[in-house]
C-alpha cells in the first residue's frame, strides 16, 4: 500500500509544483489536471481490497459477492469528480484562448498588470 500512497503524493506534488511555478498558462492548466488525477487515484485506493472484485453483480459471482466486492462509493465519487474536472478544464481553456487572442502570449508574467 505504501507504494501507491507514495506515488499519489508524488504526483500531487508534481501537480502543485506545475501550477505554482510554471509561467506558461497551458502548463498551469495541465498541472491542475495532474493534481486532480492524483486525488482520484487516492479516492480509488481508499476502496482497495485484497482479492477484490468489481462491485457489479453477475449471475456467476452472486454467492461470494458480498465478501469480496470492493467499496463502490469512492468509484461513484471519482465519477462525479471527473466531470467536474472536465468542466473546469474546459472553462480554463476558454479563458486561455481569449487571453492569447488579446496579448499573443501565453506567459503569465507578461499578462500581469494588476498589482498592489
Amino acid at each position, binding site marked *: 500500500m505504501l507504494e501507491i500512497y507514495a506515488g499519489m503524493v508524488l504526483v500531487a506534488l508534481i501537480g502543485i509544483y506545475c501550477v505554482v511555478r510554471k509561467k506558461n498558462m497551458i502548463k498551469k492548466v495541465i498541472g491542475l489536471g495532474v493534481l486532480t488525477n492524483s486525488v482520484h487515484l487516492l479516492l480509488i485506493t481508499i476502496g482497495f481490497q485484497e482479492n477484490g472484485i*468489481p462491485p*457489479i*453483480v*453477475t*449471475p456467476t459471482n452472486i454467492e461470494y459477492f458480498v465478501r469480496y466486492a470492493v467499496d463502490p462509493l469512492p468509484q461513484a465519487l471519482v*465519477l462525479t469528480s*471527473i*466531470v467536474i474536472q*472536465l468542466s473546469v478544464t*474546459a472553462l480554463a*481553456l*476558454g479563458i486561455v*484562448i481569449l487571453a492569447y*487572442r488579446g496579448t499573443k502570449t501565453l506567459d503569465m508574467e507578461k499578462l500581469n498588470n494588476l498589482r498592489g
Partner: protein
Amino acid sequence: MDIIIRTVVKGLFPFIVLFGVYILFHGHLTPGGSFPGGIIIASGIALLMLSFGLSKAERTIKEKTAHMTEAFAALLLVSIVLFETFVRSVLRPTGTIFELWSAQQILFLNVTGGVMVSMAVILILFLLMKE
C-alpha cells in the same frame, strides 16, 4: 485531411455512436453508465470535426440543437431526481434482475444523463474549435 483517415472515420463513426448508446443502455448491468457513454458519443463527433472540419460536423448535429437538447435534458434530469420518490412509485423496478429491462429508473436516468453529457461536451468542443 488525408483520404485514408477520412475513409476510416466515415466507416468508424456509426459504430462509435452505436457503442456509446450500448454503454448508455447497459449502464445498470455492466461497467459504464451515463458519463462514459456520453463521452464516447461526443468523441465520435470530435473525430468527425478533426478529420472533416467544422462544417461537416455541423451538418451532423447543429450547435443550436446541441444547446437546446442539453438544456432540456438537464431540466428533465433535475426534476426527476428532485421528485425521486414519486418517480420511483411510477417506474417501479420490475423485470428480472440481470436483464436489460430491470431497474427502470436507473436505466432512464442513465440515458437522459448520457444525452445531456454528450450534448454538453459536443457544445464545448464546437466552441473551442471555432477559435
